[in-house]
């Protein structure tokens, strides 16, 4: 069926004036707070949230021995419900080896390559999404807690710069919508505050689970910009900044979003 329609006309909304910039404490809310009651209910019940299939796939992968040493994630980390609690809330974090910020999916890729000595799952693969969702859901309900780590400052600053930079043929920045106009609508859709609380999410539009980077690529296509590559430093930096913006909001993984 023709589910997909050109969505660009909706950008004809005029973004003028009203520079609200930073979102104040009590006004700060997760994307789920902008959703319909029905979509909220779909997320809230584990037997009705299709993102749970990804969690269950991830749980299986967590225990699956791989590589020459036949090591699973569980071989080192044991019970994810204990060892991975809070991990998603703390990412992106600083990676000592590369000397750069790393996001949760990147951490899982590295662990698989270096510790399990197995072929890493590519970004966007169902397997990496499943493991990231499984690890992510262990932080469900915990506040987003960006690490106090000065080594992350350059990444966060670059993320902020990218968030505020106008891009694409529509000449809009992330901030044009998500800082300055989050209380308005873009066509029929509420503009949210861009807090990445539920990732990986089950997006109704995708009819599948996807990453924050995939979601940001959708936004970039929306403003007619060339999207960054999956796993690029730009996206990691944006994630690092977004997590400081979302600090204190509860992790909802697996979130459901329209």
């Amino acid at each position, binding site marked *: 069926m023709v*589910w997909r329609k050109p969505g660009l006309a909706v950008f004809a909304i005029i973004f003028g004036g009203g520079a609200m910039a930073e979102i104040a404490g009590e006004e700060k809310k997760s994307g789920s707070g902008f959703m319909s009651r029905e979509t909220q209910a779909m997320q809230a*019940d*584990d*037997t*009705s949230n*299709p993102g749970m*299939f990804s969690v269950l796939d991830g749980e299986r992968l967590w225990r699956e021995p791989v590589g020459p040493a036949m090591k699973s994630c569980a071989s080192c980390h044991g019970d994810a419900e204990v060892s991975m609690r809070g991990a998603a809330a703390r990412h992106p974090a600083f990676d000592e080896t590369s000397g750069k910020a790393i996001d949760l999916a990147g951490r899982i890729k590295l662990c698989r390559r270096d510790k399990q000595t197995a072929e890493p799952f590519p970004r966007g693969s169902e397997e990496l999404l499943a493991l990231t969702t499984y690890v992510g859901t262990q932080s469900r309900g915990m506040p987003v807690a960006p690490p106090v780590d000065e080594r992350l400052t350059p990444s966060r600053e670059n993320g902020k710069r990218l968030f505020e930079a106008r891009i694409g043929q529509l000449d809009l920045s992330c901030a044009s919508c998500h800082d300055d106009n989050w209380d308005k609508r873009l066509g029929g859709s509420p503009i949210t505050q861009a807090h990445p609380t539920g990732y990986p999410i089950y997006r109704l539009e995708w*009819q*599948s689970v996807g990453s924050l980077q995939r979601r940001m690529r959708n936004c970039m296509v929306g403003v007619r910009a060339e999207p960054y590559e999956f796993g690029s430093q730009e996206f990691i930096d944006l994630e690092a900044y977004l997590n400081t913006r979302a600090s204190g909001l509860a992790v909802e993984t697996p979130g459901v979003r329209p």
Partner: protein
Amino acid sequence: MTARALINAPKTARKGDIIEIRAMIAHKMETGYRQGPNGQMIPRDIINRFVCTYGGAEIFSADLFPAVSANPFIAFSTVATESGTITFAWTGDDGQTQTATAEIAVN
């Protein structure tokens, strides 16, 4: 074939209670009306039939079409009659059937 499915059914019930059962299976429900990136139509591939049996008897079924969402979700009711197994079976366009079960204790 064992289904990747999420079942929500009470583990216990009193005889005569009307219980709600919810069943969701992982399936893309490809409509056959969608174009892929190469402009080719993506072939239809859906779950077209769902059957629930309780104590061996069919208590509910459904014929599904492409307008049912990805990861088909169905909620329905039944009367708790006896302790036993509730079986869920989903059949796809390829003729393959995937199943899941839930146990219920009725007193």
